[in-house]
């Protein structure tokens, strides 16, 4: 079965390492913060100028001057730092963020990503996404593997206007976890109960399937 949004967040969270500075995009990436493994401490960077984003505030803590890049009211954890947008993107552009997790419409076998613009539809802007994909060395894209109509979003070449060129090396879809290397997707794991055949069928780009593709496991309670 395809992963739920929560399971996707859980799976991504396993890529976190102790001491990582992490930027989480809007949507599923944001949920990753709920599944940080025990014994692992990560510092969340929010590109509007906050390093060390904490939990959502209580009613008493609510402060309009304290928001995250998704414009939600948040708190800062002890040891947080707050700075200007120029400083924030200096961190991002300068490659100081250890892991960036963000959504995508399409990804291709050369690591291109399209995530901000569907021609003919209203364009709201790229926000910080282009800076994030250009600046990070370590990016995980979270996305559905195919559209509702079954059309693959893991392509030979992106159809939509790009957010960044050749910058994505890992993709987590609702069906699989894949790496991108040397012009191909490499299937690393599959969602519980999802067959390799289904993944092959729904991957339009070049896909390398190793002899053994382990199934992801999730705790019942999660």
């Amino acid at each position, binding site marked *: 079965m395809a992963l739920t949004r929560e399971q996707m967040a859980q799976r991504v969270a396993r890529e976190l390492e102790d001491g990582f500075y992490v930027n989480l995009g809007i949507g599923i990436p944001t949920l990753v913060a709920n599944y940080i493994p025990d014994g692992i401490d990560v510092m969340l960077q929010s590109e509007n100028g906050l390093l060390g984003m904490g939990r959502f505030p*209580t009613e008493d803590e609510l402060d309009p*001057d*304290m928001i995250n890049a998704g414009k939600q009211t948040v708190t800062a954890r002890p040891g947080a730092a707050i700075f200007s947008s*120029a400083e*924030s993107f200096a961190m991002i*552009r300068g490659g100081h963020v250890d892991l960036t997790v963000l959504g995508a419409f399409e990804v291709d076998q050369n690591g291109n990503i399209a995530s901000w613009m569907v021609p003919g539809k209203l364009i709201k802007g790229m926000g910080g*996404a*282009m800076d994030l994909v250009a600046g990070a060395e370590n990016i995980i894209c979270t996305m559905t593997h195919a559209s509702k109509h079954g059309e693959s979003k893991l392509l030979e070449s992106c159809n939509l206007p790009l957010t960044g060129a050749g910058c994505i090396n890992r993709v987590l879809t609702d069906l699989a976890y894949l790496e991108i290397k040397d012009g191909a997707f490499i299937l690393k794991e599959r969602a519980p109960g999802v067959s390799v055949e289904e993944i092959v069928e729904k991957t339009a780009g070049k896909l390398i399937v190793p002899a053994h593709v382990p199934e992801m496991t999730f705790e019942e309670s999660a």
Partner: protein
Amino acid sequence: MAGFDKRVFSYEQAMEGIEDGMTIIAGGFGLCGIPENLIAEIKRRRVKDLTVVSNNCGVDGFGLGLLLEDRQIRKIFASYVGENALFEQQMLNDEIEVVLTPQGTLAEKMRAGGAGIPAFYTATGYGTPIGEGKEVREFNGRPHILEEAMTGDFAIVKGWKADRYGNVVYRHTAQNFNPMAATAGRITVVEVEEIVEPGELEPSQIHTPGIYVDRIIQGSFEKRIEKRTVRS
């Protein structure tokens, strides 16, 4: 106003000199840390054909969204312009020109404008529509595009505290684009919650040194929240 006393005592004075066709650089991210009263004064003055440089364009009826109501903005440089029905309508009708700019590039363009750096290279936007028509050059084996600095006739900024000399500190994430905007205006106007005496702000803790600031005004602020999110 003698010496370094940059205080003004009305919003009319604060925005004196703004004219049709000018470029306004604005601080703020979403509705956080926006110069809400300076924007309201621009609306009141009915100046038109403005070019606005701001990460966002407010929401319907608040922030820069106010300037859409009478079509005062002709062109805007922004990274994200959602959350605003009137904006969408004007964009679809070609009544407003939108130059979408990556957020980090926008921040750096303002900073460069204030810092006398006319242009810089960045990997951001290479290979995307943003890079089209821009010079591409390789550094460290990687293609980068050339981006030029931005400055404005006015910069409008929201601070927390300032002294009479125009030294400003920002509160929490209301800092965002404000420090860069403050450096990039030919005339920089800062509205703050409190004006203190020179010497009350610790010199090494000042975010915006007074040299960048032309006018300071103390105001009161609604500080509307865009996405109120609480835990129980």
